[in-house]
């Protein structure tokens, strides 16, 4: 009996760091932000209660609506491409060869480096008019004066490309999932005369659908919260075309002194994320196979 009590105390002690972190760095700040969303707050003075005014203002804020548009474009452009690319590379890296460990590490590297400031600036310089990309295009006789970051459409694609390039974490999840598929399924299919495409769509894809689902949920959330790329590479430009929601929120908080307004924006984004994730979970039973491999 005494041992059980001690075990309980030990459990509490070991859970305590997480609980403190969870409450101190998540729940409490969220509640404070909810309060701020009903206030006018510039970070320099005490907040003033204004009720729902911030939420009403959001309805008529054209730049905010544009930031939603940019964020959706980015998320819906980058997430499917990233997942497809990660899956393709994972399929290539499935084979066992001597160099495979090195290849896997190399392909994972952009995911580690990709969020760093140095790589973002490198990426920006690569796409300058006088950058590496145009120089390479010039070697093959293409237009070497295209302004990738000065054009609203191509600037968005540069950021999408950067996000797709950071496919490593999705790739590792796919790789782990692919390795779990029993080889007997493929052998049986081969005996039955199944072609490669048929095997992929009828065996591989259904069996890794839980990994696709997981990647889809996580990458969609990451896509909606994208900040670094726009902040470092395009600063939201040109013409607000890459002014992602998180960057717009950051500007309102720290540059414009509208922390109350940006708190309201954060809560709207949370609701939107909840809705999108909820929709994904509702569709799960139609396409995600959770029957196991037995």
């Amino acid at each position, binding site marked *: 009996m005494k041992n059980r009590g001690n075990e309980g105390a030990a459990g509490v*002690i070991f859970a305590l760091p997480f609980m403190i972190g969870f409450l101190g760095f998540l729940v409490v700040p969220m509640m404070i932000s909810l309060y701020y969303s009903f206030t006018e707050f*510039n970070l320099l003075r005490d907040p003033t209660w204004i009720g729902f005014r911030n939420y009403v203002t959001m309805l008529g804020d054209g730049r905010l609506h544009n930031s939603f548009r940019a964020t959706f474009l980015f998320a819906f452009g980058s997430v499917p491409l990233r997942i497809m690319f990660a899956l393709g590379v994972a399929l290539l890296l499935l084979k066992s060869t001597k160099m495979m460990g090195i290849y896997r590490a190399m392909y994972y590297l952009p995911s580690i480096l990709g969020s760093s400031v140095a790589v973002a600036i490198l990426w920006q310089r690569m796409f300058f008019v006088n950058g590496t990309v145009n120089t390479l295009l010039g070697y093959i006789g293409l237009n070497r004066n295209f302004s990738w970051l000065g054009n609203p459409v191509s600037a968005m694609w540069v950021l999408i490309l950067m996000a797709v390039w950071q496919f490593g974490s999705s790739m590792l999840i796919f790789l782990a999932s692919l390795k779990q598929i029993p080889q007997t399924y493929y052998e049986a299919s081969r005996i039955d005369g199944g072609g490669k495409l048929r095997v992929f769509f009828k065996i591989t894809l259904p069996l890794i659908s839980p990994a696709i689902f997981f990647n889809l949920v996580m990458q969609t959330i990451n896509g909606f919260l994208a900040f670094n790329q726009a902040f470092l590479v395009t600063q939201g430009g040109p013409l607000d075309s890459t002014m992602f929601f998180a960057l717009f929120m950051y500007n309102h908080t720290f540059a414009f002194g509208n922390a109350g307004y940006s708190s309201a924006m954060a809560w709207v984004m949370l609701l939107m994320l909840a809705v999108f994730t909820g929709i994904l979970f509702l569709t799960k039973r139609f396409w995600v196979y959770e029957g196991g491999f037995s």
Partner: protein
Amino acid sequence: MKKTVVLVLALSVFAAGSAFASGRSDNPGQLRFAWWGNPTRNEQTSKVLGMFTQYSGVQVEEVVTAFGDYFSMLAPLAVSRTLPDVMQHNIPQLLEWVESGLLLDLTPFIADGRIDVSKIPQAVMDQARVGNGIYGIPVAMNVSAMIYDKALTDSLGLTVPRNITLDQFAQLARTIYQRTGIRTSYTGELPVNPLIAHLRGQGVERFVQRSGGGWQLGGTAANYQTFFEFIQTGVREGWHTTLEDWGGRNRSAVNTNPLVYPADLQNPRLRSWISINWANQIEAFQAAANPGQNLALTTPPSANPQRSNFGRASMVWSITRDARNPDEAAGLVNFLINSQEANDVMLGERGIPSNTAIAANIAPKLSAANQVQAEYVEWVNRAGNSTPFFGMEPAGTAQLNAEISLVTDMVISGQITPAAAAQRVFSFGQGVIK
């Protein structure tokens, strides 16, 4: 044993919490000092802070970033009451900080001589005055300016006059574009700078001005429309830089500015022969310039330059509400203002020192670029060459500036007419400034 584990865990959590909570210097003999800078300024300031430590025994922790991130970085510190003891402040933002109670009134320090301002003209000191208080010591005088590539204009046999009018400016821009393909970045960096010159040239003294208990935009929408029409003309004639020319470059970075960025030397389309800026930026621009590029200063173009030209304190040293050692903070401010040795290191990089004795002493030692600055600042401040400027701005101005930048880019890319742009800026401004 278990009790020991619990104790260690509890202490760890407490220690971690304490580490997060700290960040301000409670100990005597320690200060935190914040400034925004550039590579040249950062190196000089670090050296000067080292000299102060040797002189006073007070250790100084540096808090430094680029201007674009400076106030964003400090705002959360204001919330957590961990602002640095001494900070470089900017005249436009000063009022909001004073009204929020974040800065100490320096009058008592001045009155008992802890901060000696006897060599700073009263008119300059008044630029940091709010009500009866002085909330910053002006570091240096600065003047609105157009930095231009004199080597280029000389090579073309062109003269860029002081008090250049809009017509003269447009003619020069046209000629340079036709003969070299090099464009003109009139609104590239921060469109509000040429806009202020444009408005003042039309007789609108203040871009933002007090009205009753609040604030409003100066002038009428028509004043803004002529500004956007001038830009539209430049774009149509080909001499004004476009968004494609900037190509994603950070507008506030000096080293990639089209006036000096080395990678653009071979491509005239990406180059600009000017930057509408501040006179004290010439040192940083010249440092980033290509060999053979000789930069010079003239006044920003306007319909009436004698009316639009202005000088103001470039920045001030302020002591914050969170300073734990105000006496030592005052000592640092006094050192920065009055130490000849310190100013021999800084040599006018922040602008020509407001301390007139120091300014006279360092004049022969200035770099070639700062010699140009000193001559220009003195010229603009001469009677008849400029009019007074009220530099403090209300809350909401940063958001308004961002809107002006966006709308200017929309005019450049043909997405909006000058009339609609003027109306949009004007109505947005009336709603956002408080």
